[in-house]
Structures are given as structure tokens and as C-alpha cells.
């Protein structure tokens, strides 16, 4: 091997449809090193991983720039199997285990130990029987390496979540040639004690010569485990330095910090808005437009447990936080799309939860983050998409006698649709074009139009700019601001992009691990939000960690 590092990246860059997501990433990884890779959602971590693993999505969108070297030899993977063959292992965030199989069967999935069979040439190796003894032995030794005690015969579906994570890692370890292991948020599902065992195990693993790249949002763990920390932000490598030279606060600010970018305009705080910092007296007089108390929502992958906050009339309220921590569940739960509990009051009146109709009846409108899944009727024309909700809940765009016989008024629908097509400049052939044929940005505008048609008092929007290009982004955000100013509508925006929230909102709540970590005025420095997102505030309060 000589002096060549195990893995060397040189000037890696990547563009998706003219959208730059990675630029000029260069770093080395040596055998036995543990490297922490941190960054916000959308900082480019997953794209980097996709490139390293030769995911087909990279090649199909035009490949990447720069070069990857392993042991000093240039490589370029076109499929994950090639990466595996070169000794790069990966543990994904979501489990890819077969629930009905035992630990051993999962660890050795598709790498089973086989008895030699005389028929293997006639058919293929697949007709050979499995050597259970040898499989259990190998599984046991892989689990043993991790320093935990799990029986190879245990069925995965009967395991606690923490065990499953160990099985995933054991699977990668069992690969004979694994030299470099990527772990994507391995501790997210683990309890404190399990996480500690994992960290010890990883250190042991690194000592045996396997290099580890550890991706996590738990900065304290990153700092404890990793020798070097790489911070990615906006597709750039911001820093690459030994972890002892950085405090968690510094890491957090490097991740989100955009101190250099001064915000040009602070959104004007209208008089009706009361924040925690100013005018505490006024707060009592003005009834909040939306009051949420002890809300829990059971949304898969985005559960929130106990959320309370208030939104004033006419305010633009932001909800931020990392993906998977539950921010999306709040608006979805309020609108009744997922099982929820707690109390929600609009203008002082209690809202029935778990019934979309009830929320819509209170003049609330919702723009879903899942445009294609929930937001649109892809197979139906635009006028249907725009007016359907208003028709069903408010009885508009209908002719006839209510409750007895009502036909839809296609003419009125088309007229309304045309109005919004002009207003939001939706690019389409007309109101009868199918929604599925539009581009992402225009689909988002259709979703907004659908909400505006309802003439809402409270507008809840999830990820308003996800998957749309820059031009459309500004337009969507401007439209929202304008709508808020003109109609005094209360708007609640949920977004992963902090900067976006800071540019439009009055106040921003940060959700971390299913709870609200804090609510701050948007004018606070980005660093403060970063610390909230990383869960540092809580840790500091609990005295477990001091920077």
C-alpha cells in the first residue's frame, strides 16, 4: 500500500440539473481512522455518499467531477456492488433487515455459507444447502467484535431496536474485505447506554484497522468518537480538522453559520405579533390565532411527543429542525392527517383532531410536503386540483340544491383556475392540463392556489420550496409574504431550510427529537438555531455536556 491513503477524494463536485450540490470536496481517509462527517440536511452528505457508492442515480444524472482513489488507484463505481467489492461498507439510516430471519441469516444475507453440492454446475450455486453451523459461527464472531451479546438464533422482529442496529453493523463487519465503513446516523435509534456500547465497539473496530466515517447529528458523540471532523455546508467542505480543536458550539456554528451573509431585511413585525422578548403585556389582549398544547402526532418517521406553542394573528411562524425529528408532524397532525392528541385551539375555539374536515371547516388550509402523494390529483386537470377542496368543504363551484342535488360548475372552476394560473404565473397549457404533467415548481404553485382558493384564516405550509428551482423558490416565498400582508392571514411554514425560514418568518420554533427545543425571533443569529437543532441546549441544561 505504501504511503497511499485508503481513500482519497480529489475535487469532487456534482450538479443536478444545473443545481450545484457539491463542489470541490477533497480529503483523505487512512486505515483505522474515525472521521465525523457533519452537516445540515441538504448540505450534500447524501450526494457524497451516493457518489462513493456508485448509486445509479449519479450516473443517470450526468456523473460527477473529480476523482476517487483507493490505495492510490483511481476508481469509479457504477453500482453499489462494485463499492462493496472494494471494501466499502455502509450502514443505512433505515434498517434493511428481514424481520422474520434470525440474526445470523440477516448478517449473512446473500453471503450464506454453502455446503458444496454436486448439482451446482447444472443449475447454479443457489441449489447448494446452507451450512447453518458455519453461518452461526461467523455471525457470532461478527457480533462478538462489536462487544455485544446477541444470540445468532434470535429472530430480528423480536429484537429491541438497538439490537437491530448492531445486526446491521455486524453485517458489514462480516464482509471479509471491509476496510471502510460508513455509518449514517447509527445512534439515532439507540438508547444512551446502547449508544455507548456502539461507540466503544466502533473504537475497537477502528483499532483493528478499519476506517470509519461516522455521520451524526449528535455532536457530543461525534466529538467523543471521532479523531477528525469534516463539516459540510452548502456542498462545500468547510473544515477538516482534529476534533479536539473544536467545541460542539463551534461545530454547530460551522454547520449552520452564515455570519458572512448579513440579512438584508428583517421581516417587519406587525403590531399584532407578540414575541417572547417584546411586549409581554400585549400578549394577553390578543387572542392567538392558533394555540397548541401538548400535541402528540403519530406520523411515521416524524413523531412528535409533546408540543406547545402559540401563533398570533397575522404572524408568519416558522417551524424548523432536522429531518426525522418531527417538525412535519405538527402541521400534519393539526390538519388531522395522522393520529394526534392534545389540544389545539383556533381563535380560542377547540379544534377536533383527526378529522381533516374539521380543520378545513375552521378556515384552515394546508399545503402538504408530499406534493405528489397528498397534495395533488396527478391524473386530473388543474381546475380540479385547485378547486376540489373548496368544492367539497365550502360547497363552492357547485350548482343545484345543497344536500339534495349538486352538480359541479365546470365553468366556474375553470374561471377560478385561470385566475390563479395568471396570478401565480403557473406554466401550463390551460386549466384542463393534467397536474402530473407540470414541473415541480408549478405543481407547488398549484398546491398554493388550492390553499388560497379556500380563503384561509390560517395557512399551514410544509416544505414550500422542496424540489423546486431557485426562481420558483423566491416567487413562492414572495407570494406567501404578499398574501400575508394583503389578507392578514396567519401562516405557519415548516421547512428544513433555516435560511428560508429566517427570511420570511417572524418567529421560528425548532423541533428536536419530537419536542420543541426553543422558539426564537427570526432575527436571532443562525448559530442559536443551529445549537437548538443539534440538541445542545438541552444537553447543556442537563449538565451532561459542557463545551
Amino acid at each position, binding site marked *: 500500500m505504501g504511503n497511499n491513503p485508503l481513500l482519497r477524494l480529489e475535487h469532487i463536485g456534482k450538479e443536478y440539473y444545473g443545481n450545484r450540490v457539491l463542489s470541490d470536496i477533497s480529503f483523505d481517509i487512512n486505515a483505522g481512522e474515525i472521521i465525523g462527517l457533519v452537516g445540515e440536511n441538504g448540505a450534500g452528505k447524501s450526494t457524497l455518499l451516493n457518489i462513493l457508492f456508485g448509486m445509479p442515480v449519479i450516473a443517470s444524472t450526468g456523473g460527477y467531477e473529480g476523482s476517487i482513489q483507493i490505495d492510490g488507484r483511481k476508481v469509479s463505481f457504477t453500482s453499489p456492488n462494485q463499492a462493496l467489492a472494494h471494501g466499502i461498507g455502509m450502514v443505512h439510516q433505515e434498517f434493511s433487515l*428481514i424481520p*422474520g430471519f434470525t440474526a445470523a441469516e440477516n448478517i449473512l444475507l*446473500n453471503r450464506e455459507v454453502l455446503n458444496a453440492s454436486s448439482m451446482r454446475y447444472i443449475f447454479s450455486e443457489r441449489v*447448494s444447502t446452507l451450512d447453518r453451523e458455519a453461518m452461526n459461527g461467523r455471525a457470532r464472531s461478527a457480533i462478538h467484535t462489536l462487544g455485544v451479546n446477541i444470540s445468532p438464533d434470535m429472530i430480528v422482529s423480536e429484537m429491541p431496536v438497538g439490537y437491530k442496529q448492531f445486526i446491521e453493523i455486524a453485517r458489514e463487519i462480516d464482509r471479509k474485505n471491509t476496510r471502510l465503513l460508513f455509518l449514517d446516523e447509527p445512534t439515532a435509534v439507540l438508547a444512551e447506554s446502547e449508544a455507548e456500547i456502539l461507540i466503544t465497539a466502533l473504537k475497537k473496530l477502528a483499532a483493528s484497522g478499519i476506517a470509519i466515517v461516522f455521520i451524526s447529528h449528535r455532536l457530543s458523540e461525534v466529538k467523543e468518537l471521532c479523531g477528525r471532523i469534516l463539516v459540510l455546508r452548502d456542498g462545500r467542505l468547510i473544515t477538516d480538522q482534529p476534533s479536539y480543536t473544536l467545541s460542539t458550539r463551534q461545530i454547530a456554528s460551522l454547520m449552520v453559520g452564515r455570519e458572512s451573509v448579513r440579512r438584508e431585511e428583517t421581516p417587519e413585525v406587525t403590531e399584532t405579533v407578540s414575541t417572547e422578548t417584546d411586549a409581554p403585556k400585549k400578549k394577553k389582549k390578543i387572542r392567538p390565532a392558533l394555540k397548541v398544547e401538548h400535541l402528540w402526532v*403519530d406520523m411515521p418517521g416524524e413523531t412528535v411527543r409533546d408540543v406547545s406553542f402559540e401563533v398570533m394573528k397575522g404572524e408568519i411562524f416558522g417551524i424548523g429542525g432536522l429531518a426525522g425529528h418531527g417538525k412535519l408532524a405538527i402541521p400534519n397532525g393539526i390538519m388531522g392527517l395522522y393520529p394526534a392528541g392534545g389540544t389545539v385551539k383556533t381563535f380560542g375555539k377547540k379544534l377536533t383532531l383527526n378529522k381533516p374536515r374539521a380543520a378545513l371547516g375552521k378556515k384552515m388550509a394546508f399545503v402538504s410536503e408530499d406534493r405528489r402523494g397528498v397534495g395533488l390529483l396527478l391524473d386530473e386537470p388543474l381546475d380540479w386540483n385547485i378547486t376540489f377542496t373548496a368544492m367539497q368543504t365550502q360547497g363552492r363551484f357547485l350548482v343545484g340544491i345543497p344536500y339534495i342535488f349538486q352538480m359541479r360548475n365546470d365553468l366556474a372552476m375553470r374561471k377560478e383556475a385561470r385566475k390563479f394560473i395568471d396570478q401565480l404565473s403557473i406554466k401550463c397549457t390551460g386549466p384542463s392540463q393534467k397536474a402530473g404533467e407540470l414541473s415541480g415548481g408549478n405543481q407547488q404553485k398549484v398546491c398554493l392556489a388550492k390553499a388560497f382558493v379556500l380563503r384561509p384564516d390560517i395557512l399551514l405550509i410544509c416544505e414550500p420550496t422542496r424540489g423546486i428551482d431557485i426562481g420558483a423558490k423566491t416567487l413562492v416565498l414572495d407570494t406567501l409574504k404578499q398574501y400575508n400582508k394583503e389578507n392578514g392571514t396567519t401562516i405557519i411554514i415548516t421547512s428544513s431550510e433555516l435560511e428560508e425560514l429566517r427570511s420570511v418568518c417572524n418567529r421560528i420554533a425548532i423541533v428536536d427529537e419530537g419536542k420543541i427545543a426553543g422558539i426564537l425571533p427570526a432575527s436571532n443569529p443562525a448559530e442559536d438555531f443551529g445549537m437548538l437543532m443539534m440538541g445542545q441546549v438541552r444537553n447543556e441544561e442537563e449538565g451532561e455536556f459542557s463545551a
Partner: protein
Amino acid sequence: MRKIFDIIANNAVPAVFIIISAFAIPLSGYSASYLVQELLTRIGRNSFLILSLLIPIMAGMGLNFGMVLGAMAGQIGLLFICDWGIVGIPGMVLACLIGTPIAIVLGIFCGHVLNRAKGREMVTSYILGFFINGVYQMTVLYLMGWIIPITNPTLLLSRGYGVRNAVSLLGIRGILDNLIPTIITGTQGTAQFVNINGGKSFIMMQLPFLEGSIRIPLATLIVIALFCIFIVWFRKTKLGQDMRAIGQSQSVADSAGIPVNRTRIIAIVISTVLACYGQIIYLQNMGTLNTYNSHDQAGMFSIAALLIGGASVSKATIANVFAGVILFHLMFIVAPVAGKNLIGDAQIGEYFRVFVSYGIIAIALVLHAWRRNREREAARRSLRGNKGDE
């Protein structure tokens, strides 16, 4: 609570059948030895067909309604040996040899079609059965004797091409069943079977408590036993392991590098080929081939029997197969007579068993879909992991 519900839901079907049979057997007035004889015959006749359903279930493809494809392939093999006049065990084996490539081709076709219709394999394979039935009829009714040479005039319709509706399989009738003649008799009935099989020697056992005597299709049962061993062995192979993996989670299997689509096709091919053999065994017992109907009911009755044995759309074992054959056919034998003795109308018993076959499949499918939707719900909840626990 849920556990109790699951136990009931899992075993309700066999339990109901045991109860029905318990009432119907005395009503029918059949003797024990008659029932045992009939059941043995039917086990020999049907279990191979039912066993062929197990492998696609293992691969998560549900009940293979496309097994009629295999049955048709087997019938084509039989038609050829009838035409060529190959009789006895050589005839049967040759029919299998001819049927195999046809079944493989049909199986590959079926597999490709099902891969295009993931998530609704059952309804697709069901319609596919009808579609291939059309092609089969075209082949047998128009092409045979015209493009495909059939020389034996007794096989053809009077117009010169197309195969007759009923083809006698005299040459291979009961040939496997009687290969190793075995008779169990009670003490009284010793003499009466001696001259069967042209005076050939046969294995005879005497059981003192038995009335009458029972002929056992020993060779058929041995073939079935071998097949069971094959399935047990198959489950232990890498291929079987891959199928189990795919059956539980296609996406995980795919990300682990298991060729999902190819493996699914293999599962269907194996099932189709085995159904082909199963149909040949079935018809050698029956002795006549109804060219245009024999395969029709093969799929439905096999599936009903399997489900009655306590299998579900996603899980089936060898024990289910035999429990199913016994319960289903017990009812088949006793229902018409019981119906006649009870209501005075044999027709009702006849319709009753048809109703039961269809009803049982409907209930099994409903239970499966219901349970799956509930499990999906539960899985969603478990996704929450630690975060969800209050």
C-alpha cells in the same frame, strides 16, 4: 387479546371443517374402511398438485392460480404419449419429459407477467390462467392434427383435426398407483383381492380391527413423500433462503444483491413444472382426460384444499397440504350423501361443496388482506422506534 384472535383466525378454517365432518360422517353412513380407502386414493391423486403451490407462497407471490398452466403442459404431454401409444411407467415418465419444457416456457412467461404486476400477482395469475387456456384450446382444438402431427385417429375429432373431448388414458391408468400393489385387509376380507393384477404378488398386511380391505397406492405415496423431501431440502438451499427473503421483503433482498425478479420467475417455473407432474399423476389415477375441462378445476380445488388445511396466502407448510387434502376431500365424499340423507336432495350437497370451496378461498383472501393491512399499521407504529414511546 390479539394473540387469542390470531390463534382463532389462524385455525378457524380447519376447525370448522373438522366440526362439519364430525357431523356429516355419521349422517353419510359410510363405513370407516370405505372412507379411508377413498381418502387414500384422493391423497395420492391430489397432494402432488397441492404441494406445487408451496414454493410461490414461500417467495411471497401468494397462491399461484397460474398452476393451471402446468396442468395444461402435463395434458399436452399425455396427449402425445397417447398418440404415440407409449404405455405404462415409461409412458408416464415420457409425458413428464415432454411436459417439462412446455411447463418451463409457460412458467417463464407467467413469471415475467407477474413481475410486471407486482402487488396483484394473484388476480393476474388467475386471469393468465384463462388467457393461456384460450391458447391451449386453440392448440389442442385447431393445431393438433393440422400443424402438430397427431396420427392416431381415435384421438381426433371426426373432422380430422382437433382432439376429442374425452381421451382415454387406458395405457397409463392407475399405473403408478398399482406399481407396488399393497392391500391392507381385515381378517374377513382376505381372499377377495388375490386375483387382482393378473396374479402378481403384492404386499398384504392384515389388521384385525378392520372391516373390508383397503388398497394403498404405495408407489404414488412414495413419489409424494420424495417430493416432500424435495421441498424440505429446497427450503434449506440458498435458493430457498433467497425466496424466503424475497417473500418477506423485496426491497431488502434487492439491496442485499439477491436477483429478485429472476428468483421470482424461478419460483413460478418450479411451481408450474411440479403442477405439470401433479396433473399427470392426477390423470393416471382418473384414467380419462377431459381435454378441455380437466385443468379448469385443478387450480381452484388445490387452492381451496390448501387453505382448508390451515395455510394462508403468505404461509403454507407440508402439514397444511395433507390436513387440507384430508379435510377437503372428506367433506367432498360425505357432503352429497349427508345432504341427501338430511334434506333428501343430493344436489344440495353438490352445490354446498362448490360453495365451500369458493367461500373458503374468499374468506382466506379476506383474512389475509385484513391481517396484512393491520400489520402494515403495526409496522408503521414500530417505525417510530424509541421516540414513539410515551
